[in-house]
């Protein structure tokens, strides 16, 4: 048992750390750090820098741009990106679509899509959730009916993150309406420019356009865009959702937030000094840091276990990481709003002529939106309630 990184792991960490800080534009990292929205160009630019280095899709098969990293290296890589406030590689391209296609796609599909996905030449989004099928995904209703060389798709998807930027969407569609719930579902790739697709924005709490509804009205999709076998889409989705958990605790993100909070606290007046001089505030920060340290070790324990030959399944501990990780991400944003205090009330849209930020603090208007936005992390990707159920059943046997 040795709980320290090996010298090789330390060297790797330092390499990732210095690359992140020297190569990714500071302006992009500032936006991430402040919790302000990124433009599509920001995300593409950052990912292409990573991809040029060979680091956009390290967990993919070597043939498609992956790196044969150990689980610990992958863990280090993700955490370093997060701590440097570098946008993670576009999630749908890199952590969902890519792994599924590399595993279940045809050679033609791989050739056509994978390298473009890694470089964000194509932007992929996800078409899983429907208005009546959120956590209960298997009850989805969007259907695809075979018509010659095409499927004809009708239905509606929702919570489609950044679908407004997307060139392609990978969808779960019902191809056999007779089959029970999980069966009869297929995994289809759909060109977002196809006639019959409408994208409607949904504004989230903080007022940002992050998610969409996507409507399909007799959309014709070539059968060559079916992934794997018809009616086996549920298997591919399960594979994908297990992959989604990678780095789900977002330790590095919360660390970066805490670091920033401490820095800002030293500049925020309070009483005769600053907020950092207030023992009660420091205590609340420390509580989050301590819980985060424990979660960091827990995450390393999980990562180390994944490195063993006998464990190819996703660890049930990923539910634990999801629950506590999301809680700590949220706790950090609560501290940020507390720090902004009376100034948190001001909204970012200050309008023309209003040059001075509230109280002269240029970050306070983004504090509450960051808090609002982060309420989602305990909801999406399988809500924390679902994760509790998973542990109760899968680990405790209740």
């Amino acid at each position: 048992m040795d709980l320290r990184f090996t010298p090789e792991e330390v060297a790797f960490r330092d390499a990732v750390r210095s690359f992140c800080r020297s190569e990714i534009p500071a302006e992009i990292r500032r936006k991430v750090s402040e919790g302000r929205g990124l433009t599509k160009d920001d995300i593409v630019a950052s990912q292409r820098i990573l991809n040029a280095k060979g680091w956009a899709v390290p967990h993919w098969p070597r043939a498609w741009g992956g790196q044969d990293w150990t689980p610990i290296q992958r863990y280090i890589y993700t955490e370093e990106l997060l701590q440097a406030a570098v946008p993670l590689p576009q999630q749908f391209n890199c952590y969902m679509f890519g792994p599924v296609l590399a595993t279940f796609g045809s050679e033609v599909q791989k050739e056509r899509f994978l390298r473009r996905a890694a470089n964000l030449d194509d932007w992929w989004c996800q078409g899983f959730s429907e208005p009546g099928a959120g956590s209960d995904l298997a009850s989805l209703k969007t259907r695809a009916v075979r018509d010659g060389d095409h499927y004809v798709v009708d239905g509606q998807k929702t919570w489609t993150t950044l679908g407004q930027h997307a060139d392609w969407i990978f969808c779960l569609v019902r191809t056999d309406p007779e089959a029970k719930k999980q069966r009869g579902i297929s995994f289809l790739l759909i060109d977002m420019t196809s006639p019959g697709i409408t994208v409607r924005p949904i504004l989230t709490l903080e007022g940002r356009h992050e998610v969409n509804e996507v409507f399909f009205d007799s959309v014709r999709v070539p059968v060559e865009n079916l992934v794997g076998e018809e009616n086996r889409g549920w298997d591919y989705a399960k594979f994908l959702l297990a992959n989604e958990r990678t780095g789900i605790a977002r330790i590095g993100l919360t660390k970066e937030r805490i670091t920033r909070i401490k820095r800002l606290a030293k500049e925020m007046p309070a009483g005769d000094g600053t907020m950092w001089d207030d023992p009660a505030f420091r205590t609340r920060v420390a509580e989050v840091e301590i819980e985060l340290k424990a979660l960091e070790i827990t995450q390393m324990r999980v990562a180390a276990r994944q490195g063993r030959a006998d464990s190819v399944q996703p660890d049930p501990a990923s539910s634990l990481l999801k629950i506590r990780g999301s809680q700590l991400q949220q706790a950090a944003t609560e501290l940020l709003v507390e720090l902004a205090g009376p100034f948190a009330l001001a909204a970012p849209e200050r309008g023309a002529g209003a040059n001075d930020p509230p109280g002269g603090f240029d970050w306070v208007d983004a504090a509450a939106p960051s808090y609002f936005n982060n309420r989602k992390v305990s909801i999406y990707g399988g809500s924390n309630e679902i994760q509790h159920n998973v542990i109760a059943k899968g680990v405790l046997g209740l």
Partner: protein
Amino acid sequence: MDFDFSEEQGLLRDSVTRALADAYPSLERRQARIAASLGFPEEGWRSLAELGLLGLPFAEDDGGFGGGPVETMIVMEAIGRTLAVEPYLASAVLGGTALRLGADATQRARFLPGVIDGSLRLTLAQTERQSRYDLHDVATTARRDGDGYLLDGQKCVVLNADAAGLLVVSARSAGERRDPHGIGLFLVPADAAGLSIQPYPTQDGGRAAEVSLSGVRIGADAVLGDPQNGLPLLARTVEHGIAALAAEAVGSMEALHALTVEYLKTRKQFGVPVGSFQALQHRAVDMMIALEQARSMALYAAMMVEAPDAAERAAALAAVKVQVNKACRLVGQEAVQLHGGIGMTLEYIGAHHFKRLAMIEYQFGDTPHHLRRVAEDGGLIAA
């Protein structure tokens, strides 16, 4: 002891509830009202005046209706339930309390008729860059200038300043930045030379502004009470603000809790209503407990906000804010969580309740601020 409304209070509750329900029948209509240039429609304000709500707290001798804290509570609860954006808190509660408790006969005669008929709106300019929630931390200066004063300084996050005709401004006529002594409240017309207002929307659908005062000249008649010892008046004004916010929070939480329970009953997952899951049931119960505890504290605030003993009153209102803040956070966060995705979207009225509740936590002092005040004063129970 009697927790029932009087007949008049019952009528007031009915009329204000009906009027606001008419004005805010849907989220769309609320957003349309917010889109008005001042963040609310003038006719909305006029209808509050017509209902008599703007004169509610003032004595009948001053042309008001002689209402007390319970009447304000009734109005603010209805505002909270409907998420109404008319500046009742800024003008009637904050500005109104300062005038009601601080103005002399001349000032009352001059300003109150307009306040009551709705032609004059008020606000309180108190927060400063460095003050955080400390009312005694005032860097804005009021220098003697002949009979009157010259005001210089910056005020932050002044509620509905762009809709106000008269600002109640705290400024220091003597002493060091954090001295309790030497603070005065001054009445500054919105069109005073040297006054600049930079308005902006707030996170919760309201409006506020940065206000800068650069050599603003006011006469001797613009001093509210004692220019050197205005802190008690400012404190009482903010205490009324806390009592009003507590009631608003209760109204908003009540609405949000009802929405959540309704959602749990109707939304199905895995073939059954979400509300059939016991874990979610228990959390909805904990929300209700928090709501009822906050409701008790809103009543306590109404009972204590006119109590004669300043220390006892201060401790009580601080305790109220702590309990209400905690309820705002729990009820707001749990409502979003129990709704799932829909709770995250601006298309859903519940999301707007969540945001308002989140912001109430940071108005007139957050939880740690008031908790510290209660603790420093030795708590609520004599030992």
